[in-house]
């Protein structure tokens, strides 16, 4: 019974993760510019991967495997914001202007600084 | 033991040199000649140990089927001796010219020597690939060592083509592995005849293409003239004299061991490649104005000679190929050393600017003359003898086309070497009056003397018999398999 519960919960998590992955990829395809796509990419991680991995951690045969799943989650949580942030900043510094933007306080700050 | 040391000693020398350099460079001055000498002696010792009977060294104490084994037989012994002499001369030349300053050069040099010994000794196909890669990388680096634009470009081209060749070799090894699930060469040779033909073809083609790319046979030779002419003199001598020969060794070993019984048409391919590279190399060399480039194209042609010998696939053919390899090492190393030194001294490599060099650099030009005569095949010198045996081998196999190509190539080569020599001996002015330094002269003189001696030795039947024995032993795959697998 507990075993079956485990399976159900795990696959539920995984299904949610896959759903989020697919939507995020849809976002990557549909969104208009880099910055918005970065959001979608972040979601691929947080929405998709984390849930799938959590499901995997539940499903894993031994505690060592579960621990490794947890480690993967932890490292994703540490590393991915870094890379997303670095890319966003690099894009902005490189001079790629967002195609669709309603408010840009960062741009104002940079231009102020330059002056 | 000695076989292992022949690889390990230069390798650890290469590891030690940075330490010596970083912590007191005086040690470098002291130890570098010792290392060079040690590598030379150990290589020769390995050659000697393998000449009579099969000498084996098992790594990790595992039998040949399980681990890697080093095998020295007659064929590898001859090539080991060749490598020892070629590397020694090149080392001496460079040491005399540059001293201990460019220590990284020595690191790469010793890596090259170690890996060449490894290729010559190893009895395992994948291990051969690994050593092959080391020495290829070292060779690319040595080519681009001088960092002139020619050197860099040549190094890059050499690298790309050589890497493609290496991948072909890797592919061949992979197919051999897929088919037999083993990579020991003896075990492979034992199981090759039962292989499906399609696989056999792929292995053969990959091996031949890969080794030809590395050796510089005709349609694959394009990196060779660039690399050999752009490198510094010592490196040119090393590349033309030794490095290319190691590829030839691999070709001989692999083709004889694997395809001798299973797929004899490989030898036709090798013969055709040999004929093509002979004619192509000579024809291209005959219009060169740059002396090092001329010599480099001549190397292509000489590779063709050797490959014709290999392609005959008979004991005489192999013996002639081996003999010619050795001779070519002597001649081409000597030629590169003399011509390179002359070109460095007068600061031009254009042949037309070398008018009257004889009257200013008597010793070097005389040595060059002897060596050039030898490479053309003037009778009492070694080039003639090896060509004669090549002709004998090809006539024995009734491939007159190859024999005629040999003759024709010799005629063309005479034409361009005479062009160079006549420029040297035409009176002319405008060179500084000093003779090259002693050690270089000594190397050149030694090599030309060796040319004369080796030209006369085969007249004494026993000595030629030795070479034929090497060839027939290399052909005798059954003995090889038995010696490696049953011990």
């Amino acid at each position, binding site marked *: 019974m507990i075993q079956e519960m485990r399976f159900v919960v795990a696959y539920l998590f995984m299904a949610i993760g896959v759903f989020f992955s697919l939507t995020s990829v849809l976002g990557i395809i549909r969104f208009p510019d880099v910055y918005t796509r970065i959001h979608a990419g972040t979601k691929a991680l947080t929405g998709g991967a984390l849930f799938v991995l959590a499901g995997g951690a539940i499903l894993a045969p031994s505690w060592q495997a579960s621990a490794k799943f947890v480690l993967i989650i932890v490292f994703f949580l*540490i590393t991915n914001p870094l890379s997303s942030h670095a890319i966003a900043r690099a894009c902005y510094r490189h001079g790629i202007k967002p195609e669709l933007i309603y408010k840009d306080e960062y741009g104002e700050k940079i231009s102020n600084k330059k002056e | 033991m000695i076989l292992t040391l022949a690889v390990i000693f230069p390798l650890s020398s290469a590891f030690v040199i940075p330490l010596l350099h970083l912590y007191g460079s005086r040690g470098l001055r002291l130890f570098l000649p010792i290392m060079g000498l040690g590598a030379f002696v150990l290589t020769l010792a390995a050659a000697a140990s393998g000449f009579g009977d099969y000498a084996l060294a098992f790594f990790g104490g595992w039998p040949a089927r399980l681990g890697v084994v080093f095998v020295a037989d007659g064929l590898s012994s001859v090539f080991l001796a060749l490598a020892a002499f070629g590397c020694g001369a090149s080392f001496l030349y460079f040491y005399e010219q540059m001293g201990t300053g460019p220590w990284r050069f020595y690191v790469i040099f010793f*890596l090259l020597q170690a890996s060449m010994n490894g290729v010559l000794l190893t009895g395992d196909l994948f291990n051969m690939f690994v050593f092959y890669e*080391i020495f290829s990388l*070292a060779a690319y*680096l040595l080519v681009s060592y001088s960092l002139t634009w020619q050197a860099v470009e040549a190094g890059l081209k050499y690298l790309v083509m050589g890497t493609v060749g290496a991948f072909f070799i890797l592919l061949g090894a992979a197919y051999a592995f*897929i088919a037999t699930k083993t990579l020991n060469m003896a075990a492979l040779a034992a199981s090759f005849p039962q292989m499906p033909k*399609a696989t056999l073809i792929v292995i053969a083609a990959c091996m031949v293409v890969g080794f030809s790319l590395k050796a510089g046979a005709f349609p694959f030779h394009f990196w060779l003239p660039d690399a050999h002419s752009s490198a510094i003199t010592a490196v040119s001598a090393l590349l033309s004299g030794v490095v290319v020969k190691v590829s030839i060794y691999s070709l001989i070993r692999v083709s004889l061991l694997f395809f001798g019984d299973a797929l004899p048409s490989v030898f036709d391919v090798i013969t055709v490649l040999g004929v093509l590279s002979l004619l192509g190399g000579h024809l291209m060399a005959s219009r060169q104005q740059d002396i090092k480039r001329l010599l480099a194209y001549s190397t292509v042609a000489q590779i063709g000679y050797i490959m014709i010998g290999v392609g005959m696939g008979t004991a005489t053919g192999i013996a002639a190929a081996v003999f010619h390899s050795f001779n070519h090492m002597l001649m081409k190393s000597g030629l590169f050393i003399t011509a390179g030194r002359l070109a460095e001294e007068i600061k031009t490599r254009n042949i037309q600017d070398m008018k009257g060099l004889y009257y200013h650099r008597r010793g070097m030009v005389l040595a060059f003359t002897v060596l050039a005569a030898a490479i053309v095949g003037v009778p009492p010198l070694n080039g003639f003898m090896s060509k004669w045996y090549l002709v004998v081998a090809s006539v024995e196999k009734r491939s007159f086309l190859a024999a005629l190509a040999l003759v024709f190539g010799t005629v063309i080569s005479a034409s361009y070497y005479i062009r160079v020599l006549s420029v040297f001996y035409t009176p002319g002015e405008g060179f500084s009056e000093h003779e090259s330094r002693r050690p270089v002269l000594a190397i050149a003189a030694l090599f030309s003397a060796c040319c004369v001696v080796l030209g006369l030795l085969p007249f004494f039947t026993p000595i030629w018999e030795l070479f034929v024995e090497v060839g027939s032993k290399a052909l005798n795959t059954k003995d090889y398999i038995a010696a490696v697998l049953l011990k």
Partner: protein
Amino acid sequence: MGLLLLCLGIGWWLWKGVAAMEDPEFIIGPAAYYIINTAEETGAANIVAAILFDYRGIDTLGEASVIYTTVCGVAMLFSKSKYKRSSAGLSFIARRGVSFLVPFLLLYGSTIILMGHMTPGGGFQGGAVFATVTILLCIVFGSSFEMSRIKPKTKETIESLGGLFFVFLGGVGLLAGAGFLANTAAGFPRGQVGNFLSAGAIPLLNIAVGMKVGAGLSTIFYSMVRVLELEFGEQMSEVEGNDKN
């Protein structure tokens, strides 16, 4: 197009080469022996590591030498160049995050090296992780930051020592009369399979390779990062010169 056809022609023959063979049902050749006997003979749980460092140790020495050659070569090619030191790195967030990660990366690398005889991994992979760490440091903190910590001299020393250590461990076997790179036959303790201290010399060899690869790959990166090159014309006499960095 012709070129594509050319390549596909090669591919066609290659395909015929494999298509002629049947899929293997079971393992033959030396590998069967390895699978059965590795635990007993070497004490390593990872058969690949046992093959790499014991059965075919000379291959690994060759592999290490390949990297060494490349390192020396790249350093030689760029020996005339100099570092353009700069501390312009990435943003503070990236710096902080990476600096938080670095100890874990280091531990991860050393774990891979030390567990090479039990789990996937080994000297090469761990060394590559170390190299990645140094590269990351350079990228994130700017080149001046990392330079103040590990000098090229140190790296080169580490690399040479790694190589010598490998050769020394091999030489022990040679001295013991069991052949170069012999493991248990040369008296290294076999230990309990799956235990940390097992497999004789394999962990030590892993460490040697890890030293070599880690120092080597990061040297390659740092050599290539050097920018300013004095164009010395093309005379041969000025090649190399004195290589002080």
